[in-house]
């Protein structure tokens, strides 16, 4: 489904992503872990079109998307959640969800058509999934950190993405909020391929099958959680004794 061919991004001398060959099958729930500065978010920025790679290609459903604009890539079904919760702070929760729903159900330029019932129903469904049922009227900016993360996940859901990029969905969440996020992502992954960048080992233990470990801009190793845990090299990066 998604494949990168020796993808590289250089920031005046420093190689954030270095000849990365990453591939992902349809329906997978892949986690990417690695210490700070391993190039995870830079990889997401390139896939979603916000950052042009120095060289290398990104292929999605065997179509080159390396040079496309962010909105063109989003229209192809690749939707991302940003590392810092990126929602419409001054809108109510309902309005936040209205924006993505609109694009899905009623085409692009909808000058004088009003919100159809169907979009309203869709918002209710999503509120149910992300468990913000009673918070519909609240202003997004006043939600707790965890609730904002859920709202943003809900918004990406509204786009019915074929590939979902989640950047540290559980950052700043309490224990039970993380657990709840795990469940939400698990039932999303039935219909959508997901890549998650995460640090929380407990969280990864619960939800993931395939894991990719990144370090200094390239893939160190890939495999299931058990393989990763016993891998000496991975232990070192995390405990700082890398060779």
């Amino acid at each position, binding site marked *: 489904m998604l494949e990168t061919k020796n993808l590289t991004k250089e920031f005046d001398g420093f190689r954030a992503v270095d000849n990365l060959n990453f591939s992902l099958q349809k329906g997978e729930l892949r986690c990417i872990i690695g210490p700070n500065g391993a190039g995870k978010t830079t990889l997401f920025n390139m896939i979603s079109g916000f950052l042009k790679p120095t060289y290398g290609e990104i292929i999605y459903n065997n179509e080159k998307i390396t040079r496309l604009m962010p909105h063109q890539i989003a229209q192809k079904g690749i939707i991302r959640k940003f590392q810092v919760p990126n929602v419409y702070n001054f809108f109510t929760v309902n309005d936040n969800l209205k924006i993505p729903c609109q*694009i899905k159900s009623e085409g692009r330029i909808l000058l004088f058509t009003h919100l159809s019932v169907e979009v309203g129903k869709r918002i209710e469904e999503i509120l149910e999934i992300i468990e913000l049922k009673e918070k519909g009227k609240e202003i997004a900016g006043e939600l707790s950190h965890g609730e904002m993360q859920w709202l943003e996940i809900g918004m990406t859901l509204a786009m019915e993405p074929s590939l979902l990029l989640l950047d540290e969905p559980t950052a700043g969440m309490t224990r039970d909020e993380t657990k709840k996020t795990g469940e939400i992502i698990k039932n999303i992954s039935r219909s959508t391929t997901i890549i998650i960048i995460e640090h929380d080992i407990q969280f990864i233990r619960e939800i993931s099958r395939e894991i990719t470990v990144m370090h200094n801009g390239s893939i160190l190793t890939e495999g299931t959680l058990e393989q990763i845990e016993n891998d000496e090299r991975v232990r070192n990066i995390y405990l700082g004794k890398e060779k």
Partner: protein
Amino acid sequence: MKKIFRNKFLILVLIFVALPLVLSTYYVNMLSLFLIMGILALSLDLIWGYTGILSFGQGAFFGLGGYVYAITAMNLLCEVQIRHLSHYNVVNHGGTTYISILLAIIFPAVIAMILGYFLFYAKVSGVYFCIITLSLTLIFQQIIMELVEYQIGNIPIGGFNGITYVPRISIGIPFWFYYSLEDPMHFYYFVLFCTTASLVICYAICNSPFGSILTAIRDNEIRTESFGYDVRKYKVMVFTISGALAGLSGLLYCSWGSFISPASFDFFLSAETVIWVLIGGKGTLIGAFVGSFLTQFLENLLSDVLVYYWLLIMGGIFILIVLLFPKGIMGIIYRLRLSIIRSPKKQ
């Protein structure tokens, strides 16, 4: 919510319909000017309040609208005997001015679209956009001042002293009968019609799904772009509409005073428009009118008494508003109303 709002809006319109019956022609004329300037403020509020694009170029579209109207109307309706460069007399043969009105709206809209495409597709935004639009107003002004001896059709553009004897708007059925709105009362009602129409259109735009995307762009452009909306396209569209509105306001102004010159759309007009929208409250549409009415009314009232001091005070008010309540008057009203509704729930 929709119902209550519609009634309030109707009441407001009725008040304005009744006003001229009770006021002297001087005040009716003044009201027409306020409404005309309100449309200009509306054009800025549409892009700044709703989409987050602060443009200093509204003055340029305003002037463009005025000049296009003056030139086309005079060419079509009048016969000009030129005795000396700035001294000519005009014979008005009459006829409806629909074409001039249309052109005076479409021309600035097209220029706005081209300019919008040129700037937004290069991701020019924020401060750079302000400075470029500001310098465009100056460019347009300089070009007009330069064309002293030139003529379009047989109408002298007149450089710095502008074009005079511009015919008033006249309505009716083309080639059959026409009725020129010389009488201030009739002209006022035409202006009121235009104001209500543009407010309704802006309201439709802002409350439609298209409008919610505009506010989404204002609140969080990156998020909106990553949902698949081509942000640049929307910006160009709303900028074109705003150019048309500013053009409408320009043509009404030119027809109101039967005169248009580079001075009528100078640096200071762009500044005033920003002040009106800021004082009235960004992103509330009605706020644009409230701001422009209040400021212009005070200006008229106080300017003969205070003359210079008035601008001193306006500068001061402006600073206070930016520092203390960036939401403006309507913002305060909303906040008051909001806190009344929400306060019981909060305790």
